């Protein structure tokens, strides 16, 4: 069963904001922040670095769109389907951080995509859904 348009759009936003958010955050932590200590001032300084800030903003959007998606879709649907992010993170790691992709990683990628394809054929909601009065 093909998911409806709203489910597809929100799934896509959830995946993209998580991948880009994690990327911006790790880029910022690597290039903008040196030796993070746990003093409040150092922490505040780290948070205000541009890429770190962008990463945090994207991850807030990720959290809110994921919550919205969960307002109608099953957790057991959202979880596997949005794990495409792991694959994209690996790809970004290869491209930007020059990490090697081992045969095991390729197999892992194929398994994840196969798992997503399988879950994607199931109905996004299997529990009664309340319609929000607004």
């Amino acid at each position: 069963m093909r998911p409806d348009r709203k489910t597809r759009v929100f799934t896509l936003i959830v995946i993209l904001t998580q991948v880009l958010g994690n990327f911006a955050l790790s880029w910022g932590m690597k290039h903008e922040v040196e030796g993070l200590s746990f003093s409040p001032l150092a922490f505040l300084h780290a948070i205000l670095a541009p890429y770190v800030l962008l990463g945090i903003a994207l991850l807030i959007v990720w959290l809110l769109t994921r919550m919205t998606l969960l307002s109608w879709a099953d957790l057991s649907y959202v979880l596997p389907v949005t794990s495409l992010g792991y694959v994209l993170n690996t790809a970004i790691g290869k491209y930007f951080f020059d990490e090697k992709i081992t045969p095991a990683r390729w197999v892992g990628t194929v398994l994840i995509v196969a798992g997503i394809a399988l879950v994607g054929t199931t109905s996004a909601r299997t529990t009664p859904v309340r319609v929000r009065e607004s």
Partner: protein
Amino acid sequence: MQWLLVAVIVFSTVVGDLLQTIEMKRIGEVHDFRPGRIGALLAELARRRFLIAAVFFMAISFFAFMKLLSVADLSFAVPASAASVVVETVLAKLLLKERVDLRRWAGAGLVACGVALLAL
């Protein structure tokens, strides 16, 4: 120490996701995305106790993951998050009464194995 952190990560991720799902299902399907309505929705989300608790558990999970990365390799840390996919699927069936059919079990299993392999 490592395994304790893994246990904390899996536990807090699972609890956070379950709380979010329960509360969002209570709130009901969001279908109105006009700016004013989104603002009203955000105000409502910020007042829901389960969601506040969920964010708290997600924060614990996040900081435990950061801590784990400082004492263990990524190849040890990432499969830990793969374990929560399986645990959450089981609990989604038992607690949330979602209908997890064979395809969904198989898919969740494949994803978990795949994520574990990515770390190698």
